[in-house]
C-alpha cells in the first residue's frame, strides 16, 4: 500500500465520519454544552483508531507519523468538531514520546489509544510552575494559563522549573491542590483553562532538567500540527466563499463573476495553496527528523496562521451581511483562525525566532 493511498483512505474515512456525525448543528450543540465536548464523540474517535493514531504500535496505537496526523488535523480543522484531539492525541502523546519516559508511556499511551485518557499540556511559554521535591515525591506550585482542554482532561502535563532546570510533570485530574478554571475563549469550539497548582503532588516524566529540550521539540511539533489544522480550516472557508459566490445572484449575475469577488477568492486560493505546501513541509520535517524542522515549523506557523485568518475574514466579506450573523458558520472559523494565530506565539514572534534559527 503506497503512502498516498493510506493518506487518501484515512482522509476519506475521517471526512466521512465528520460529515455524517458532526455536521454544523452538532458542532454547535457540543460547543454549547457546559464542558464544550462530548465523551461519546471521543469514544467514537477511539473506535476509529484516531485517538491512538500517533501512539506507537507497542502501546496499542497505529504508530502513524505526522503525515497521517496532519490528515486528521486538516479534517478536524474543516469540521471544527470540539474534541480534545489536538490536546490529547497531538500535544499529550508527543510530550510523552519526547520525554523518553518508558514507564509513563506504558502507563498513559495505551489509555489514550483506547480513548480512556484525555491529556492536556501546559505549554511552557504560558506556565510559571515551580517544582520542589517533597517527602513522597514532587510538589508543584504555580499556574499554567491557556491550557487547551485543560478543564476536562484526565491528566495534565505541565512543565515546571526544578533545581536541575525545567522538567515535565504529570498531574492527574484528581490531584490535591489542583484547580482548573475554564476561561472565556474567542474560539467557541475549543476550550481553554487556567490550571493552578498548590502543593500539588506530581510525577516527573522523563529526566529532570530535560524539560527545555522537550518543550522546544514539542513546540516545533505543535506548530506543524496546528498548521495542518489551519490549512483544513482555510480550505473550508475558501470552499464556502466560492460556493456562495457561485450561487449568490445580485445585479442579474452570480457575484463570483464580479472581479472584486473573483479575485478575492483567487487571493484566498493563492494563500491556501501556499499554506498547504508550508504545512506539508513542516509535517514532513517532523517525520524525517529534518535538521531544519524549527525553520519549517516557523515558516508554517507564521504563514498558515496569517493565511487562515485572512481567508476567514475574506469569507465573511464575500458573504456580506449574512456572513456577519451568528447563525452563519463563517464566524466560527474567523474565531478559530484568530485564536489559532495566538496559541503558540504570534506570527511576529515566529518571524523573530525564524531569524534566530537561521543564524541571524
Amino acid at each position, binding site marked *: 500500500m503506497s503512502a498516498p493511498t493510506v493518506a487518501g483512505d484515512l482522509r476519506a474515512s475521517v471526512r466521512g465520519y465528520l460529515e455524517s456525525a458532526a455536521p454544523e448543528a452538532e458542532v454547535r450543540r457540543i460547543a454549547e454544552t457546559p464542558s464544550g465536548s462530548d465523551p461519546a464523540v471521543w469514544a467514537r474517535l477511539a473506535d476509529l483508531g484516531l485517538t491512538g493514531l500517533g501512539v506507537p504500535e507497542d502501546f496499542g496505537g497505529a504508530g502513524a507519523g505526522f503525515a497521517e496526523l496532519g490528515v486528521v488535523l486538516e479534517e478536524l480543522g474543516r469540521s471544527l468538531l470540539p474534541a480534545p484531539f489536538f490536546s490529547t492525541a497531538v500535544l499529550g502523546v508527543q510530550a510523552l514520546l519526547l520525554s523518553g519516559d518508558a514507564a509513563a508511556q506504558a502507563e498513559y499511551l495505551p489509555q489514550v489509544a483506547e480513548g480512556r485518557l484525555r491529556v492536556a499540556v501546559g505549554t511552557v511559554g504560558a506556565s510559571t510552575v515551580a517544582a520542589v521535591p517533597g517527602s513522597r515525591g514532587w510538589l508543584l506550585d504555580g499556574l499554567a494559563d491557556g491550557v487547551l482542554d485543560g478543564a476536562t482532561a484526565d491528566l495534565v502535563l505541565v512543565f515546571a522549573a526544578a533545581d536541575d532546570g525545567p522538567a515535565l510533570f504529570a498531574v492527574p485530574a484528581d490531584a490535591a491542590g489542583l484547580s482548573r478554571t475554564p476561561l472565556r475563549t474567542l474560539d467557541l469550539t475549543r476550550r481553554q483553562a487556567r490550571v493552578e497548582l498548590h502543593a500539588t503532588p506530581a510525577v516527573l516524566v522523563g529526566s529532570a532538567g530535560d524539560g527545555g529540550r522537550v518543550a522546544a521539540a514539542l513546540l516545533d511539533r505543535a506548530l506543524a500540527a496546528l498548521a495542518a489544522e489551519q490549512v483544513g480550516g482555510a480550505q473550508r472557508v475558501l470552499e464556502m466563499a466560492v460556493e*456562495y459566490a457561485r450561487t*449568490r*445572484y*445580485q*445585479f442579474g449575475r452570480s457575484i463570483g463573476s464580479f472581479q472584486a469577488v473573483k479575485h478575492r477568492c483567487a487571493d484566498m486560493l493563492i494563500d491556501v495553496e501556499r499554506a498547504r505546501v508550508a504545512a506539508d513541509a513542516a509535517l514532513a520535517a517532523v517525520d524525517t527528523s529534518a535538521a531544519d524542522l524549527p525553520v519549517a515549523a516557523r515558516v508554517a506557523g507564521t504563514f498558515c496562521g496569517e493565511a487562515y485568518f485572512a481567508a476567514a475574514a475574506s469569507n465573511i466579506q464575500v458573504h456580506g*451581511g*449574512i456572513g456577519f450573523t451568528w447563525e452563519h458558520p463563517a464566524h466560527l472559523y474567523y474565531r478559530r483562525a*484568530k485564536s489559532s494565530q*495566538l496559541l503558540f506565539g504570534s506570527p*511576529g514572534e515566529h518571524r523573530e525566532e525564524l531569524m534566530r534559527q537561521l543564524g541571524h
Partner: protein
Amino acid sequence: MVQPSADESLDGFRARVRAWFAENVQLTGGVKDESFDAVDVARRFQAALFDARLAGLTWPAEYGGQGLTTAHQLAFNEAAEPYVVPTMPLLIGLGMCAPTLLEKGTQEQREEHLARMLRGDEVWCQLFSEPGAGSDVAGLRTRAVRDGDDWVVTGQKVWTSGAHYSDYGLLLARTNPDVPKHLGLTMFVVDMRAPGVTIRPLRQITGGSGFNEVFFDDVHVPGDAVVGEVDRGWQAAVTTLMNERVSIGAGGGGLGRRLGGGEFAALADLARRRGGLADPVLRQSLASVFVEERLLELLSSRIREDVRAGRTPGPQGSVAKLAGAQLARHAAEVGLEVLGSGGAAWESDDADAERWTQALLGAPGNAIAGGTPEIMKNILGERVLGLPREPAVDRDVPFRELRVGGGRS
C-alpha cells in the same frame, strides 16, 4: 426660553439655538445605543426641540417645519456642534423617510405624518433590504398584490435598524414581476404594528442585535398608503437613499466624535499596562493606528467644514467610510497582537480582552454595513473618477426571468 421674533437675524437665530442648548443640556448627551431607553430620550429631546420651534428648520411651515433657509440650518449645526445630540433613533425617519414623503408622498400622507415625525411622536424605519437583495436593492422579492383597494404584502426584509421600536416603516415591494426589476416596485407606508408583521432581532457574530428581520405575512396595507405612483417605487427609493447622509432637523453634530473613537490612545494604554510598549515592532503598528486615526479625524473635519460652509462634501465621505472600517479592523488586530494568547482565552473579568475581541468580531460588520467596500469602491470609481459602469445584464429582463438572491454555503 428665548422666543423667535418675526424679524430675527441669522445671528439672533444662532444665539437662540445656543441659548436653547444651554438651557436644555439635560436633554442631551450620554446616550450611545439603540435600546428602548435611547428612543425615549430621543423622543423627549425632539419634542422639546419642536416646541422651541427649532425642529424641521428648512421644512415647509405647513408640515410643522420652520420654513427657514439653509443658512439657518448651517447656523444651527454650528451652534449644536459642542453637544451630543441624542436623535440617532429618529434619524432614519427624519433623514430618509420624511424627505421621501415631502417629495413623493400624497398631501394626506404629509399632513398625517410629517409634523408627528418632527415632534418625535412617530418613529420610522426603512424596509428595503432583503436576504436576496443586499447590494442589489432593486432585486427585492417581497410582493404586494392588489386586493380590492388594498394591497396584501408578503415577504421578508432584513437589516432593518430600529424595526422593534418603530411606529411606521417605508416599505419597498414588488408589484409587477413582468417588467425589468427597477420598473415593478412600489413604495408603501406600513404600520409596524399591523397584523402579520413579525419582527425578529438578528443576532450578529458579536452576540449583539442591532438589526432585525421583518416578516410580512399577508399584511393588509390600504390603497392610500402608496408613496408616489404604483410601479414607480424605485424613483421614490432613490430619493430615500439620496437623503441617507443628509442631516435634517437636529442633526449635524457628533460625526467627528463618532469616527475615530480614540483607538490609538486605548491601544497605547493597553500596551503600557500589559507590556509591549517597548517592542519596536508593536510600536510600528501602534504608530500606524495613530496615523490612520489622525487621517480619519482630518477627513471628517474637512467634511464638517464643507457641510458648515454649505458645500457638497467631496469624495471624503466614502473615503472616510472605507478608512474607518479599515482603522477599526486594524486597531482590533493590533489589540489582539498586544493581548497575545490573552486574546484567545481570558478570565471573565478581563475587560481588555472583552473590548478587543468584541472589536475584532465587530470589524467585518463595520466594513459591510451601509455599503460593502466593493460597492463603495464602485461609487468612488464611477461617480468620482468617472470610470464607466460594468455592462448591465439585468436592465432589460423581466424580473420574473431574473435570477436573484440565492447563495448556498
